[in-house]
């Protein structure tokens, strides 16, 4: 614990690491400047100073209480890579996201979205976006993984955010598929359908099909909540649950359909169509054939 020698100094000059303290410190922080102020009570600047102090104290208290950022995104990434990423960013992304990734009317700020968001958006071809529409679609990927990594490193250097999951986080071999299925049905199937085939959302938006999406991208989507999707941070959905979901999806995606043609796994609509067109169609054809035989 550091004592504050110069109590009249504005608090925001101090590094955040100095801003933890007990209740007593807070009381002192609050009362000492007030006592000093009371001597020159009528000053025009009193409200302003008070306001600044209040803000500084609130901010300081928050920084002291809030947990440290989850992932240290920039660790282990060479600054050369960040530089290269910045060059790629300026060429390909900055027209919408701004020269300093601060965001424009065409695209959101990328400060704090983390490397995972970049890896997901660019790695699935969603970024650079092709056109306006209800939703940005998955398409051909335009960059190599190295280039994507560089851009991710650059964006991660702008502010802390979720990192790209590492090998260990993606190793779902030991995960419980059945539990993953249950978690999937509770959190995901209402939009993505029971078999991950996707589903409609409002006004032309949709939850995309999860077929053929790599485990890394599924993981990143859960971490970052792209477009209409909610964020399933590690606090609400622990990494083991994410792995279990991925395992369930991959197992059911690969398993052979035990009952014959799967009819798209989108529920009774295709079954009804097949029942009418194939089943009843064939039977009516047989009836016509039998009827013709009689003559």
């Amino acid at each position, binding site marked *: 614990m550091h004592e504050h020698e110069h109590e009249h100094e504005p608090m925001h000059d101090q590094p955040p690491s100095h801003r933890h303290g007990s209740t007593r410190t807070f009381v002192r922080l609050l009362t000492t400047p007030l006592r000093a102020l009371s001597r020159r009570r009528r000053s025009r600047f009193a409200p302003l100073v008070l306001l600044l102090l209040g803000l500084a104290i609130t901010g300081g208290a928050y920084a002291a209480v809030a947990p440290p950022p989850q992932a240290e995104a920039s660790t282990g990434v060479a600054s050369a890579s960040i530089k290269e990423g910045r060059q790629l960013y300026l060429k390909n992304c900055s027209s919408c996201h701004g020269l300093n990734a601060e965001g424009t009317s065409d695209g959101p700020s990328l400060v704090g979205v983390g490397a995972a968001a970049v890896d997901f958006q660019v790695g699935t071809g969603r970024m650079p976006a092709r056109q306006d529409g*209800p939703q940005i679609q998955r398409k051909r990927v335009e960059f190599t993984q190295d280039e994507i990594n560089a851009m991710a490193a650059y964006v991660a250097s702008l502010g802390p955010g979720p990192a790209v999951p590492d090998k260990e986080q993606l190793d779902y071999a030991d995960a*419980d*598929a*059945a*539990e993953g*299925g*249950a978690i999937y*049905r*509770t959190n995901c*199937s*209402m*939009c*993505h*359908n*029971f*078999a991950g*085939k*996707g*589903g*409609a*959302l*409002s*006004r*032309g938006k*949709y939850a995309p099909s999860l077929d053929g999406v790599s485990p890394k991208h599924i993981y990143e989507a859960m971490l970052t909540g792209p477009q209409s999707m909610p964020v399933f941070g590690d606090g609400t959905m622990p990494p083991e649950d994410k792995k279990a979901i991925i395992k*369930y999806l991959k*197992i*059911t995606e690969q*398993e052979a*359909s*035990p*009952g*014959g*043609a*799967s*009819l798209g*796994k*989108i*529920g*009774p*609509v295709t*079954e*009804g169509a*097949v*029942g*009418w067109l*194939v*089943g*009843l169609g*064939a*039977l*009516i054809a*047989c*009836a*016509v054939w*039998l*009827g*013709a035989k*009689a*003559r």
Partner: protein
Amino acid sequence: MATLEQRAGNAANEIDERFGSANFVKRSARKIFPDHWSFMLGEIALYSFIILLLTGTFLTLWFTPSQGEVVYEGSYVPLHGLTMSEAYASTLRISFDVRGGLIIRQIHHWAALIFAASMFVHASRVFFTGAFRKPRETNWLIGVGLITLTIIEGLLGYSLPDDLLSGTGFRIAEGVLLAIPLVGTYLSFFLFGGEFPGEDLIPRIYTMHVLLLPGIFLALITAHLMLVWYQKHTQYPGPGRTEKNTVGYPFFPVYTAKAGGFFFIVFGVTTLLSAFATINPIWLFGPYTPTQVTAGSQPDFYMGFLEGVLRLFPNWEIQAWGFTLPLNVLIPTLVIPGLLFTSMALYPMIERWVTGDNSEHHVLDRPRNVPTRTGLGVMAITTWLILLAAGANDVIAITFHLSINAITWFFRIAIFVVPPIAYVVTKRICLGLQRRDRDLVLHGRETGRIVRLPNGEMIEVHEPISETERYKLTAHQVPEPIQLEPSTDTNGIPRRRVLASKMRARASRFYFEDRVPPPTPSDTHELESSGHH
């Protein structure tokens, strides 16, 4: 050593001496039925029903109708170790651990879809040919009853496996019950034995699905067939076919062979479909838990139009004195289906009232010769199809990359605009076809042979159609609209029920105003005497 015939004869005699069955067999075996492929549509329904009874019995041998919770330990790995109801666990067992269980389950479900679909098609045939007319109104009513029961029976069967879709379906049913004013909550608690989902639902609907409703089905189907037998089958118009006879083949041996063969065809097609196409993959849906739901939750197609009404209806609610009257549920799920089924059931009576036709009809109408009825039928089918599509609005949206809101609004408008257009177009097509028939009778068939006469005139030779064809095209009658009776009778006394007779005259005009009367004998005679045109 007696010959085979002698032995058979002896056996028959033994039976006849005890039951006096010879007379019955003689009469029944010679019963005449007319022949047409469209008369076999109802047979598809009958045979699917038999398939349903057979496969359903097989399924009961392993199905456990219980919501008691067990931990799954069967052979489907992606559900291993999950807590689920015994009903769902036993359905998984049927699908993965009982030999032949999955294909029997699939035959059962596909047969159910074909059963329902064939009933719709059979009912359409009966409607468009006017087979529901006197004396067959009762059988039409039985048919409407059977279709209604099929929807209920299907919903129960869909719910028994207790998978995620099953539970979602009954969640909607709960909502419908709760929407009923005053007694809704009580009804819901009676059905579920407490709060939804409770533990009583599956055992209860199991009894209804395998005992109560099949029993009613059997009774109604028997009555339906006995009435066909007793009232005799209708026949299409043709030479020698009148309102007083039935032209066709004897029940034995022609129809016993044909019907027997067709049963195996229906069973075969259903089995093939079940062998090659998955239906209701409950292992993918997962066990039902009220906290879970899936995108693309749909009912089977026979419920689809009800789902469609529910999805299209605007979100209207009335809130007063602390109570909510959810019109957004009440009207689409109870009032509108009630109106649709009532008007379907009452149609024969309505048409009889409008046409004032009280005579018996055993010769069928060709749909084109009754343009208004045909138009109304197509209008009803169009409505049904729009509602069916609206029930799948989310699947349409995701498949064709459209906005679900735009689709819903499109259907909301289409449901009022498209059916009347379908009515008008159908009626016009019917009238056009009738004019073509009239032309064919009066001028014969165009042969495409061009002949040049000595005076240089070029004509196309028309060939008169055969007598048989001409009979078919001219046998029907086209009634005139009923004229409005004068408001006073011959004695100058004002008539009663003026309003009813006015309405009837108006309805009759609606039915028969546009008419293309078939050529009369004098018209055709003229043609014959003057040589061809």
